[in-house]
């Protein structure tokens, strides 16, 4: 338990360079906890020469089994964008996909993580414009799931 808490705090500390001076998010808030899970998954991508830059803006909510939600974002050509979706249950098998303004699925590179409750997708938009991030939850899970999406660009 101590190791898990340390892991959480260390991961968050790396992301927020000045974490000591700031209020840490209330981790008893399930959405904040999901956000931190997503940030942990994103960490390797946010370091190194080819790193992505994490935006402070994020989205969260609660989702019924088998349902989907759409997030509207403006993306810019020549940039790459990566989105991470986290949910609490390891059986959640969430999905995250990007659609263009006509509703067409955008080719992406998808990533999954140990535990199966965090997924990520990377896109390189061919045109500048509005896109839709579709987050969804498999139908066979029993309980609704809290979720959080973070994103980064380079």
């Amino acid at each position, binding site marked *: 338990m101590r190791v898990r808490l340390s892991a959480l705090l260390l991961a968050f500390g790396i992301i927020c*360079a000045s974490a000591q001076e700031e209020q840490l998010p209330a981790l008893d808030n399930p959405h904040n906890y999901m956000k931190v899970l997503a940030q942990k998954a994103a960490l390797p991508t946010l370091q190194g020469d080819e790193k992505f830059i994490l*935006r402070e803006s994020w989205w969260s909510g609660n989702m019924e089994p088998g349902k989907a939600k759409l997030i509207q974002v403006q993306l810019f050509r020549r*940039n790459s964008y990566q989105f991470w979706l986290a949910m609490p249950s390891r059986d959640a098998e969430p*999905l995250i996909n990007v659609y263009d303004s006509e509703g067409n699925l955008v080719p992406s590179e998808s990533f999954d993580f140990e535990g199966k409750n965090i997924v990520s997708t990377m896109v390189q938009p061919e045109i*500048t414009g509005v896109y839709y991030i*579709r987050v969804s939850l498999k139908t066979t899970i029993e309980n609704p799931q809290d979720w959080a999406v973070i994103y980064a660009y380079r």
Partner: protein
Amino acid sequence: MMSRLSLFLVVSVLGSQWGFSQEAPVKIDLEDPNLVFVPDSVIPIPLEIFASLDKMGAQDWGRQIESRDFRVDTNRSRTAMLFGLVISEGFIGVQAEDKESVRRLGRDVLALAQPLGVSSEVEVHANAIINGAGRGEWENVRQELDKTRQTVINKMKENRDEQLVALVSLGGWLGGTEALASVLRDNYSAEGSDLLNQPDLIKQLKSDFNGLPKRARRGDLFTQVSQTLEHLESLMRSDDSGAISEGKVIEISLATRNLVEAIYES
């Protein structure tokens, strides 16, 4: 240390692949009334847009830095837009790696935070911006600017000042768009002009602005905001080739500049 870090970072990438996810529908009907949209809109920060432009070649961002003075009055709507504008100027300063302009911005942020009721939340970030700029730690300054913007928005939501949130976002977008249009005007390329193709984003900003209570957008300045957004909506739309003409880029540059100056000077 590495193994300890690996232990801590329990999340590891199992694999990745390019292509389409098999479970995801290949097409969705965006007009489907059963679709559920997440209401929170995220406005791109200037650096996100500048990053794309810089991939086409180095730009002279230093030319976009302007030292503008402002007077804080009792109009909180204007102050909120000014706040967004000042943050966007900070992003331009970071892009240009201009220490003095970013340090000045840190002080401006503090001056504007007080009438908006977000001083204590902003102070730590503003100091980090000023100190980071002094040391040339641009990555930290960029992060602190984004944090400042987000912290202020979160606090305003907490204070039930939603109308101010929309105006901070609008000011930030306006400042970034003014700089982008100015760079493209000075060094036009059809390829780069597509970054100004933002009709849906403007529609959203316009809708957010028009949805504000009338008391929050009373006066000549806000009439100008409304008219400029209307004008920009018709300009910031690419043609069949995917570009925005040089003439339109010049118009966008003028319209955004006039509005920015009006916000500073009113």
